[in-house]
């Protein structure tokens, strides 16, 4: 039997491909064990939302919220704007609400610091663009992150109109002052953002930033529960949201 060089290479290639496919196929054959259910104490909602009372907000309060959030989630503190990771922080009013800007904004608003975070939009562009569904919108409205699946392409950062997302440009661990052992850290190369404290909701607790605000500056609850505090606040007060013209339907409401 004489085989010429081209045919030999072709046969070797096909053989290797079949071998790899068999190996991959064989590894999917494993058993399953047990069953799963949600935490007994978990808070549930049809539509989580947040109302932030800017009239009560101060820079110190925002710093306190950010401190609580970042501590609870092992968010690293980098002292340079390049590597910075933040889930919630303060922005001047005219940066947070460029569409509301006018030259004669009332005094206390014009100089106000506004806490900004992921808006957990109803129609999130970041979810639409994620190629691996590492970020998705849950039934209860939370735009969630799966840090196991994220490939670090940063398309979601590009798509977010609010600048809510941060990327781990380097290993975060050296910059975490005090690691909270009940929550994992992230690894270099994945995107992260606020997840409405889904792990605390699963224990029936309020989000960390809400608890850190002692004056009730941030209220969190179920928008579709007509008796919830968020619904009452929205019925009573005029609220604004960020960049509403884009069609994202953000679910963070600001009382001005």
């Amino acid at each position, binding site marked *: 039997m004489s085989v010429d060089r081209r045919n030999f290479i072709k046969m070797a290639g096909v053989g290797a491909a079949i071998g790899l496919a068999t190996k991959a196929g064989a590894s999917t054959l*494993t*058993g*399953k*064990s*047990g*069953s*799963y*259910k*949600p*935490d*007994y104490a*978990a808070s549930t909602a049809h539509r989580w939302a947040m109302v932030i009372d800017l009239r009560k907000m101060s820079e110190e309060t925002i710093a306190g919220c950010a401190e609580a959030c970042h501590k609870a989630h092992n968010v690293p503190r980098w002292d340079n704007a390049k590597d910075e990771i933040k889930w919630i922080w303060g922005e001047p009013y005219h940066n947070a609400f460029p569409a509301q800007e006018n030259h004669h904004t009332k005094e206390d608003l014009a100089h106000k610091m506004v806490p900004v975070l992921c808006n957990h939009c109803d129609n999130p562009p970041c979810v639409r663009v994620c190629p691996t569904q590492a970020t*998705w919108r*849950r039934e209860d409205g939370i735009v*969630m992150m*799966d*840090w*196991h699946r994220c490939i670090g392409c940063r398309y979601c950062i590009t798509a977010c109109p609010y600048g809510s997302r941060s990327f781990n440009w380097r290993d975060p661990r050296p910059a975490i002052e005090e*690691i909270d*052992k*009940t929550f*994992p*850290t*992230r*690894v270099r190369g994945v995107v992260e953002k606020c997840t409405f404290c*889904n792990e605390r909701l*699963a224990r029936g607790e309020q989000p960390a930033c809400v608890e850190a605000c002692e004056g009730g500056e941030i209220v969190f609850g179920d928008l579709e529960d007509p008796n919830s505090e968020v619904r009452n606040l929205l019925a009573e007060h005029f609220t604004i949201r960020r960049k509403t013209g884009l069609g994202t339907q953000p679910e963070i409401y600001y009382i001005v």
Partner: protein
Amino acid sequence: MYDAGKIITGIVVFLLLVTSPVWYNLASGHSGDVPELELPAGETVCVAETSFMRAAHMNLLNQWRDEVVRNENRIYVSEDGREFNMSLTNTCLDCHSDKTKFCDRCHDYTMVDPYCWDCHIVPGGTN
């Protein structure tokens, strides 16, 4: 065959090199050694049967990951009805509290380097 001497010598050398782990292990006298695991005190069985865990703990962990992160379920009900909170750090490593005396023993022996520890915290901070 052209250059038969060179080719056959080459094949023999190649076979020796490629089987070197086998005869090196035999020669070193440690070929029968298997990793010794220190089991947690007080517990006799894990969240599932030992034979299942030995073969498929990574599959179980992947299922736990998907259930907690993607399906919002945090409680695992084992085959024998016990309930556990699904967490690598807070449940698995709660019992298997010293990673170096348990997890690492087999992982080092088989040269497996799971990257779970990049994110999931090891109590006692050995990672």
